[in-house]
């Protein structure tokens, strides 16, 4: 455990984080993949890889392709299913001295509810993050997260099945993030996180085929940071619940942009592929920034953006 001069704690709805830096879902596995390289407990928390009711093999390869300052992934939410997760992964989470958040998803409302309910038995999991970017099979495959009514319905359904705080993770592939943020807040979410990936595509000009087995994939990494920051700023100015900023954060400088714009915490995703210790370096960098400016409490920076 590192120690810092600045008071880096943030209060985050019902959660207390030792610092505002979390690992983003799908980029840090179940917390054990990186354990040789760094102690996840140095971060404010980790969001685990998305879990569904039943195991899923995921999409056909290739699943990733690099793009300028970013990457597309079409993993297809491959995961071991909630039962094996509870059996194999949860016991190891006990050793983590940080907040552990499970990321859940489903293709019907019932699936969302069922995964949430199954996780009630695991006190190791402090909160749930609900991925609403998934296609709703009952509604012709349009993502839950693109419609305020459906986003609220998923939120309520998860809340009905859990006593844990519920964070709803919003999709950026929408015309206006504000009605969705509002709907999710009214439905009872403890917080929102955004953004998930932006849908993109790459073509192989040699084979004249899509580079991804799934044709399209989700864009993440520094390329999307300005879009994520704009949406976080819009959400912060729309809802009263805390907002977690995600998207392209690699350095403490990047994290500060989100915190100053009003995010109560940040998540670090793709950066962990470039630097497996990115999250921990960011925590250190936040401390340095505050020290150099005589800021005793990082919380004082949150939302300190001056617009004109």
């Amino acid at each position, binding site marked *: 455990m590192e120690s810092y001069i600045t008071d880096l704690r943030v209060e985050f709805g019902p959660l207390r984080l030792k610092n505002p830096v979390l690992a983003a879902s*799908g*980029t*840090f*596995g179940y917390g054990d*993949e*990186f354990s*040789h*390289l760094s102690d996840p407990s140095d971060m404010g928390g980790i969001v685990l*890889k998305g879990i569904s009711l039943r195991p899923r*093999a*995921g999409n*056909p*390869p*290739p*699943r*990733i*392709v*690099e793009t*300028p*300052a*970013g*990457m597309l*992934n079409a*993993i297809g939410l*491959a995961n071991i299913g909630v039962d094996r997760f509870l059996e194999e992964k949860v016991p190891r989470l006990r050793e983590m001295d940080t907040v552990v958040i499970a990321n859940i998803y489903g293709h019907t409302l019932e699936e969302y509810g069922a995964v949430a309910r199954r996780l009630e038995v695991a006190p190791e999991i402090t909160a749930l993050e609900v991925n609403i970017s998934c296609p709703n099979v009952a509604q012709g495959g349009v993502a839950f997260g693109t419609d305020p009514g459906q986003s609220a319905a998923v939120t309520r359904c998860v809340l009905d099945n859990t006593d844990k705080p519920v964070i709803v993770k919003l999709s950026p592939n929408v015309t206006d993030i504000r009605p969705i943020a509002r709907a999710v807040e009214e439905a009872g979410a403890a917080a929102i996180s955004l953004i998930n990936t932006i849908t993109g595509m790459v073509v192989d000009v040699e084979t004249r085929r899509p580079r991804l087995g799934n044709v399209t994939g989700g864009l993440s*990494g*520094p*390329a999307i940071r300005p879009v994520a920051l704009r949406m976080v700023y819009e959400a912060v100015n729309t809802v009263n619940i805390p907002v977690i900023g995600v998207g392209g954060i*690699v350095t403490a400088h990047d994290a500060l942009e989100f915190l100053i714009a009003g995010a109560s915490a940040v998540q670090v995703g*793709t950066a*962990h*592929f*470039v*630097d*497996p*210790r990115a999250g921990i370096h960011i925590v250190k960098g936040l401390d340095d920034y505050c020290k150099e400016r005589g800021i005793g409490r990082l919380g004082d920076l949150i939302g300190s953006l001056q617009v004109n």
Partner: protein
Amino acid sequence: MVEQEVAVVFNEQVALDTFLMGLQAKEVVREAAPGHFVMVRVHKGFDPLLRRPFSIAGTLGGDLFLILYRVVGQGTGILAEVRSGSRLSVLGPLGNGFRIVSSGTSSCLVGGGMGVAPLLFLAQRLNGMPFSFLAGYGNAAQIPALDSFGLNPETFHIATEDGSRGHHGMVTDLLEEEVARLKEPVALFTCGPRPMMSRVAELALEQGLPCQVSLEAEMACGLGACQGCAVEASSATDRFYLHVCTDGPVLDAGRVAW
């Protein structure tokens, strides 16, 4: 496994578009086994963003490890311009390596193009045990000068597709001859383009020979976290996909859907 900035001791052109780089990293050398790979960050900016995977091609002394690479795009292009004395961030060693078969059996190493890289390390560690090394290239200009590897010219056989050196044809032609010639059982180790490995796996199946393949896939993390490096598993495996970075890169040929 470590993630650290290490010094580039040399970075020499050894064939057309092909370079051999020596990196100083005691920890990597200590843990490295043939078939392991490292993820290298080629520069500090975000374009290209991701680390690049390279097989460990051998070790030199107690603190140098080698990578042999071909310039095929942006990342390897940048790498080729790195001067000795510079530092690069390296993550590794990663993955599951070759299982060296017990003495008594001889080994046959079949490499295509840059696929020779992990096999060079394997050859280094097979020292004393009987093996032959078959390497295929497009043409003579692509064949790296591998003096530092001390390969025995009697057991090192080359095929080129255009016939400009060695056997005129595919490296799998050499393998067929070799398998026919040898009486005793031989273990196959292969790395190279997918069609080549597929043919080697087929031959192994026909002849009932054990065969380990080293696969490639687009990788983001190299650590088993992103699930990006999936390849289809054969029906003999209880899983639908295998992950090259943690299940492999070396796998029994029978586990892979060819």
